[in-house]
């Protein structure tokens, strides 16, 4: 058994888990954070993307023990109280989701993508960057639109602040 301590969505948590426990299992089972989903067993689908120390990670590719000591953000921790993150807002406004199962991973991947690229995002880059996130409902059309809208809004907000 491994003793695990980490900060999840700003809250210090700790627990015991078998050594083989994946980060996604720890989040879902030990912490009841079921917004992070499991859609495959080969780390292809991206439904389980979370942020570990600020970087997008597929939480099915990491052991919970490896993440011990880290700061983890899941979809549940993205909004600021009732105020949605700009990417969440963009997915809502642009109909970037249907069944919602891939959505948490999509949003977490998109937040990371926008942070890395800033205002330089274009459609081809977004599509290439979504290689690791599979959606079966939307045909990606409105997901791409949502991410570009959020990137534009974020970059506009940054410029306004400067």
């Amino acid at each position: 058994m491994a003793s695990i301590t980490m900060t999840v969505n700003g809250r210090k948590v700790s627990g015991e888990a078998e050594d083989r426990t994946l980060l996604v299992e720890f989040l879902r089972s030990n912490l009841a954070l079921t917004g992070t989903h499991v859609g495959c067993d080969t780390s292809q689908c991206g439904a389980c993307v979370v942020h570990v120390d600020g970087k997008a990670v597929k939480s099915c590719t990491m052991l919970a023990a490896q993440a011990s000591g880290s700061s983890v953000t899941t979809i549940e921790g993205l909004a600021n109280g009732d105020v949605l993150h700009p990417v969440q807002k963009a997915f809502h406004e642009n109909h970037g989701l249907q069944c919602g199962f891939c959505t948490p991973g999509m949003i977490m991947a998109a937040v990371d993508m926008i942070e890395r690229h800033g205002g330089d995002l274009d459609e081809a880059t977004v599509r290439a960057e979504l290689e690791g996130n599979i959606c079966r409902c939307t045909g990606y059309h409105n997901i791409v639109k949502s991410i570009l809208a959020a990137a534009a809004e974020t970059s506009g907000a940054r410029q306004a602040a400067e």
Partner: protein
Amino acid sequence: MGVVEGIGARVARKEDRRFITGKGRYTDDMNVVGMKHAIFVRSPHAHARIKGIDKSEALNVPGVIDVLDGDQLAADGIGNLICGWMIHSRDGSPMKMGDWRPLAGDTVRYVGEAVVIVVADTKAIAREAAEKVVIDYEELDAVTDLVTAVEPGAPQIHPVADNNLVFDWTIGDEMAVEEAISDAAHIVELEVSNNRLIPNAMEPRATLGHYDAGEDHYTCWTTSQNPHVARLVMSAFYNVAPENKLRVIAPDVGGGFGSKIFIYPEEIVCLWASKRTGVPVKWVADRTESFMTDAHGRDHLSTIKIALDANKKITAFKIDTLANLGAYMSLFSSSVPTYLYATLLSGQYDVPNIFANVRTVYTNTTPVDAYRGAGRPEASYLIERAMETAARQLDMDPAELRRINFVKTFPHETPVIMTYDAGDFEASLDVAMEAADYAGFPARKAEAKARGKLRGIGFNCYIEACGIAPSKAVGSLGAGVGLWESAEVRVNAVGTIEVLTGSHSHGQGHETTFAQLVAERLGVGLDSISIVHGDTDKVQMGMGTYGSRSGAVGMSAIAGALDKVEAKAKKVAAHLLEADESDIVIENGEVKVAGTDKKLAWHEVSLACYTAHNLPDGMEPGLKETSFYDPSNFTFPAGCYICEVEVDPDTGTTQIIQFVAADDFGNIINPMIVEGQVHGGVAQGIGQAMLEGCAYDPESGQLLTASYMDYAMPRAHDLPSFNVLTTTTPCPSNPLGIKGCGEAGAIGSPGALINAITDAIGNNDLSMPATPQNVWAALNAK
């Protein structure tokens, strides 16, 4: 119109908030006290006799609750899985339904068939124990390919089905077709295969079965598109429990596409195992299990013969189809290659004579059933490949050949039992051609050629049938269920509204669109309307969501219940306002006497219904109405899709330059949601045409495409953005004029794409999926 959040408004979805904040509740998110975890031991062989099962070592693993097999299941009286649509062969004999036990009996017939369930404290322990179950198999020869399966000497899969033939069914007038063919000026022939697909809803199937011994009552949480049908079938046929002792809950469901219509072994076995073991039992498929056990789609091989007269008018279609049903007959498998397929073989065309022969076969593969479009994509792909082929052979513009053969007056009776009630096929063709700048294509082709690339353009003018009905008609065709829908509108005392519907939403946005209908009718805000679905304890009965039926049938039922609510509200208001009932109107959340300033707020009327202090004499208190709606006809969405591609002759790689979809869905509730449905459908169609192909090893019967490493799911960079447009002829067969939009994209797109690629490469002999390898081979086979 006129209501801001009513019909036709582009309202952002009410249900989004829980999904974008991680608060969606899917079956795997459900936990109950004392819950244990199940792993199924599945057949590693495509065809084998089970000589013995040794569970002793598995039972000794610490943490294992029980290990159960098919003999124990049968001994407890749990029934076989059934196919709920009876088809008779042309000789009058009923379809040959082989026994399908929820846990295998003495024979396994496909890789992945469930044999044993292990229940343990954790999934990891169950998995370890499952590896210790020793099953002694005697391997038998297997057959996976539908052509080989019906050849003499092929391995026999079910004793009941000679030569693996399930049924040999026909529709149409064979003699008339033969006559038309012998009189024809032109004959065009084509053989087309429709590749087998694996649905891949992103949420893997899951179920949680909970038997409450105190109440002698079962609860089943499951990933279902139609929880009421699941309860009915599990009760009436599988003998799990009577309906009043079985509650089925389909909470948030992560996509279905048909694959979650069917009642699978796992739901039944987990409920049974919960009673046997005394603990709640949860099972969640891993992705490889989904690949192996979710009902697959398509897998047809067809030939078509088109007869045309000297004026290029079609005089007959003759079609022969072989359809693979897999190892067992899944719940609606028999309807897919018959009434959902052959009845659409007239396409958008005025064809006086049609004859189709469909033979269905067993193979040692996963059962095949409805997948997005279900029969209609196979029909449209066949007809539209053949129309494009005919145009090329007759040296005609493909749009022109279609145009001169379109059905132009409605209602139109086809020779394959459909009555098209409304449409304007030229309108969608024109809109699509203009959007695609068809006139400018030759110049674009020349420009591409100068760069060494091959441009092609392809059409697919599809028609489909949705909202399958009326129940009386489908019953006469063999359906075991009715295909109506129910709705209950509950107006609370404070005026807020709950709509209980038998339709199930698993991505379609019903919580928004259904509320828009209520807002349109009563003028109340969307926030005061809740849509309740997916729970047999809340909604009395319903038929669920598939076949693009939720708008046309489900919303029509809501409209019927709203009619009754409005009628009662008007009676009450007339009484309170001392006015004539016929002068009362309901507008913007107020109940008014037309032409006066006399009015009541909506909540004042509802409150009056519940206080019952001052109701008309003899009126019952309350404001709650129910409607069961059974449509008078199918609906017929139709449209034109145009795809333009550029092929790199060196690599065979295809790039989609543009994809235009012009659909006639009748009246539209929420254009944003409809466009989203088209995007998703087109993506699945492009996936079928260019990427996806289920592959079995023909010798061993092993599924070779059982993970996302092996099965090419469309990724974002495989697809373009789509140009989605609509034309409108309202549907005359339901009160809202809705036709349905869920499947069109998957129906109309494969033909458009393959017609474009074959146009680019100048070789018509190309099968799906058109991978770079297949395109390159076709290009160089000339």
